[in-house]
């Protein structure tokens, strides 16, 4: 899902840079307001976790590979705006040092994985874990029910978040042949149309990488609930 340099034309990568800069400014403001000095190690742990978990390429046998991002998990642990910063730091280091994602595409990759994936995943987690339900079976005041709803919310949020990021990636790549063609009529940048990019990227994420993200998120959350229960926000 890390778009390399050259796949997006200037209209797309420019727009996504323009979109991500105000997001970073807003996220920084929120972090300034909320982050305590004692939480700085958690920000660093989260960014490192995201960087390292993306190194675990999961194979689709005979096909491509993909990976988890940790976006929803990190948002649950440190809050959505600090998570935007943590994911962005990991993605920028990947682009500048390892060529995993392009320099021109930093805006796009941070927007897709570091912003949309984080906020969507966290929003769904909050909805499922916090929604007030009167029926006693699902009432969040019961600690067991609360626990179950948090885990289910985290799993579904993580699955939805990574799939939204994948979908945005597929759309951004797929519109390139519509936006930029050379004098000979051939695409100048990513040459594959939406009818190829969407099924190619979405099928693998809906059926495999999304599930990997959900499993990683729920497993780490289960561990942290035991080792550091104070870290799980609401």
């Amino acid at each position: 899902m890390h778009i390399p340099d050259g796949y997006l034309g200037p209209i797309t990568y420019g727009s996504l840079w323009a979109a991500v800069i105000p997001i970073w400014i807003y996220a920084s403001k929120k972090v300034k307001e909320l982050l305590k000095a004692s939480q700085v190690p958690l920000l660093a742990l989260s960014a490192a976790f995201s960087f390292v978990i993306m190194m675990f390429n999961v194979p689709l046998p005979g096909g491509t590979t993909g990976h988890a991002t940790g976006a929803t998990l990190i948002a649950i642990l440190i809050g959505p705006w600090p998570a935007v910063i943590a994911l962005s730091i990991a993605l920028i280091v990947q682009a500048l040092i390892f060529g995993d994602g392009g320099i021109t595409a930093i805006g796009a990759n941070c927007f897709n994985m570091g912003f949309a994936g984080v906020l969507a995943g966290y929003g769904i987690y909050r909805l499922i874990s916090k929604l007030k339900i009167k029926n006693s079976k699902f009432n969040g005041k019961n600690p067991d029910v609360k626990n179950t709803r948090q885990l289910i919310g985290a799993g579904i949020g993580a699955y939805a978040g990574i799939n939204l990021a994948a979908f945005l990636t597929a759309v951004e790549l797929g519109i390139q042949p519509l936006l930029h063609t050379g004098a000979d009529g051939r695409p100048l940048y990513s040459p594959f149309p939406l009818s190829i990019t969407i099924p190619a990227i979405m099928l693998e994420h809906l059926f495999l990488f999304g599930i990997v993200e959900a499993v990683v998120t729920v497993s780490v959350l289960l561990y942290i609930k035991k080792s550091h229960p104070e870290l799980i926000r609401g």
Partner: protein
Amino acid sequence: MANLKFKIQNSKFRKLWIGIAILIILSPVGLILPELLKAGGAWGEWGADEVEKIAGYVPRGLKKLSELWKVPIPDYAFSGWEQGLKSYIGYIFSGIIGAALVIGVSILIGKIFAGKNGNS
């Protein structure tokens, strides 16, 4: 270094830091499994030469932009260490370098932002 060691030993999050270290050591699994199951790279993350194989030509803009920047450690591999055992060791080193950079930048940014929020 001694200061850092002290900090980690006394950190509330010691177990989580150890978890990151274990993940880095295990990271070559992310190379070995795809090799065993004959999976290539991620969809749409091909180099210009691979795009040529798939599409039949290299889009001009793609070629130009893809040559914009030479990264120090392309694909988490050191030159001459791209295959087999050496690639796994290189991958671990890349994980260490990358995680160290990410942690350093996060602490720097975190310290700047959290500066006004006291020590609690």
